[in-house]
């Protein structure tokens, strides 16, 4: 009966829009409903609270000292100057060295890159072993590790100094990388363990039957499936290591001092009046790398957290 279909099409064509009485179709939504006002109102107020310090930092870093002394930290700069930025980056003094943050920048990179890689590599393998290859005692070690997350770093400095000294790597970059790996280990291992445990066990079993070993399964099966959690780990570690001051200064020598040491020096070595504009510029410059990492991978961050952290 091909004609029925033709008929139906004709019918539709003839009767353009059927209209009924009463509500029809989409429920009309007011943009300014009380709910929306509350919702967005709260969000905008909260956003303002979070943005305020950033605003202050930026505005201040663009003002000259006289203007700062005169007034209001919230008012926009009357005369924009990039002097503080230049100074913070290139000429601010620490003791005798007057090359600003720039000297620390590459050190920070040199510390952060291998430390992030090493700590993530170690923690991911640990998490994988804990999730898929449990052995007698593995959970016990893990519990100790998690409790270790609560130990203040300061407490551990002395024992670690001793260990590194005995290993003969105190003051070297290797030593610092190890220290970062150690302190990143508890939380990262927890994340990776939870994540790998949430992957289907059957995949792991299938790979074993296929004859893949410990490392093959990890590298060829698990890692390619774990982008989100690696992103989370990376963000956490980049943030933590880049911003680290204590380890960078305690466990290395000046030629490796990270940017935060310069930041601390700029901020803390006051020449009479605190140069707030320079401080703020230095602050922003120092935070720039982790901030960029955030902006680039923020979306993956939530996804990764959903995948890894949340499943207790």
């Amino acid at each position, binding site marked *: *009966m*091909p004609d*029925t*279909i033709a008929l139906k099409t004709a019918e*539709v064509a003839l009767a353009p829009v*059927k209209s*009924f*009485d*009463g*509500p*029809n*179709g*989409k*429920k009309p939504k007011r943009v300014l409903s009380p709910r929306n006002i509350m919702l967005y109102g709260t969000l905008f107020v909260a956003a303002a609270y979070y943005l305020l310090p950033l605003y202050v930092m930026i505005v201040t870093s663009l003002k000259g000292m006289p203007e700062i002394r005169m007034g209001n930290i919230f008012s926009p700069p009357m005369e924009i100057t990039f002097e503080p930025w230049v100074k913070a980056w290139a000429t601010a003094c620490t003791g005798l060295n007057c090359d600003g943050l720039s000297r620390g920048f590459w050190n920070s990179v040199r510390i952060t890159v291998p430390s992030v890689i090493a700590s993530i590599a170690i923690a991911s393998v640990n998490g994988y072993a804990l999730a898929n290859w449990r052995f007698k005692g593995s959970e016990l070690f893990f519990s100790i590790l998690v409790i270790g997350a609560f130990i203040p770093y300061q407490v551990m400095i002395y024992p670690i100094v001793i260990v590194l000294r005995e290993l003969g790597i105190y003051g070297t970059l290797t030593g610092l990388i190890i220290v970062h790996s150690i302190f990143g280990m508890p939380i990262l291992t927890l994340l990776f363990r939870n994540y790998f445990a949430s992957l289907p066990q059957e995949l792991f079993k299938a790979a074993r039957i296929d004859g893949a070993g410990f490392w093959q399964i990890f590298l060829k099966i698990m890692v390619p499936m774990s982008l989100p959690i690696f992103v989370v780990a990376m963000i956490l570690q980049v943030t933590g290591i880049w911003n680290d001051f204590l380890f960078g200064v305690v466990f290395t020598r000046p030629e490796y001092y990270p940017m935060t040491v310069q930041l601390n020096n700029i901020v803390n070595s006051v020449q009479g009046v605190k140069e707030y504009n320079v401080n703020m510029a230095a602050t922003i410059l120092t935070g720039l790398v982790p901030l960029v990492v955030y902006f680039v991978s923020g979306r993956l961050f939530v996804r990764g957290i959903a995948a890894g952290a949340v499943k207790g």
Partner: protein
Amino acid sequence: MNSSVSIKDLSLNFGSVSVLKDLNLEINDGEFLVLLGSSGCGKSTLLNCIAGLLDISEGQIHIKGKNVTWEEPKDRGIGMVFQSYALYPQMTVEKNLSFGLQVANIPQQEIDKRVARASEILQIQPLLKRKPAELSGGQRQRVAIGRALVRDVDVFLFDEPLSNLDAKLRSELRVEIKRLHQSLKNTMIYVTHDQIEALTLADRIAIMKNGIIQQLADPTTIYNKPRNLFVAGFIGSPSMNFLRGEIAKRGDATVFTANGVDFNVDAYEASGPLQAGRKVTLGVRPEHIKVNENLGAEVHDATVDIEEPMGADNLLWLKHAGHTMSVRINGARRFSPGSQVKLGFDMSLASIFDAETELRL
């Protein structure tokens, strides 16, 4: 009968994707309507529209004669049971049942009465103090039904309530739902993709595909007189056997011919004329083919390919003139693969579809 739920020209789009298109559906008071269709065809979407959980794009929904298109779900007089049960995990069964009522400020006495009644009907009194995690799948499902029950609603909506359960439990609960309907006489709209559920439970079945209702009829009609090829293939397990061929005249007799084999179709009650030369698809259900016994006038030869004993029944997969065909016989009768058999077809129970429009002739 009054119409209990009436859907008029309903359309729904997710962004630019149109999921439901100009859908019309009248559901009678006290009727058990099953929405059946394969995954992704829009069943849940339709149910959610009726419940008010999705804002529709076009059209109207009336429940009990009232236009509820813009009403909140709670004001529509509906109760809903979800596939994943959606029980509140940290509340006891009792709390799960009464929470909605408490929120609606119904007096405690009344709440107790309703919970008692529902738990009696569903026989979950001993479970009232437990939490969902301490219940088995079937018990959880019962509590989920109870939650709809206490709300004293006109229309029950079920979204694949049994599909997370194992086969045995599923058949038990199916009977219970049927019994519930018989005693409550509420309107029930039930989504499933399991045809056994649909056939056993429904007063009427609406078969959907791509957001369009393909056929709306009682189970017998759907089973015996499927309106089109899709419905015919969708209903029945194992599926109806389809042979592609054409109509021809052999003297007085009208035959269906395919791969050089003729099937006399004079016994078929066509709704239109079967002109010779018309390309058609013949559909025969596995249980309408006789093997070696009661063959009738026309006899076909076939070879057994695979035998699938299923207890009460025995399923044979046969090779017949280039087709593979499934035949269902009594479980006690066994054939070994490779053996030759004779077949008889009961054309009065067959279906013939136009090859192009795929509509039943």
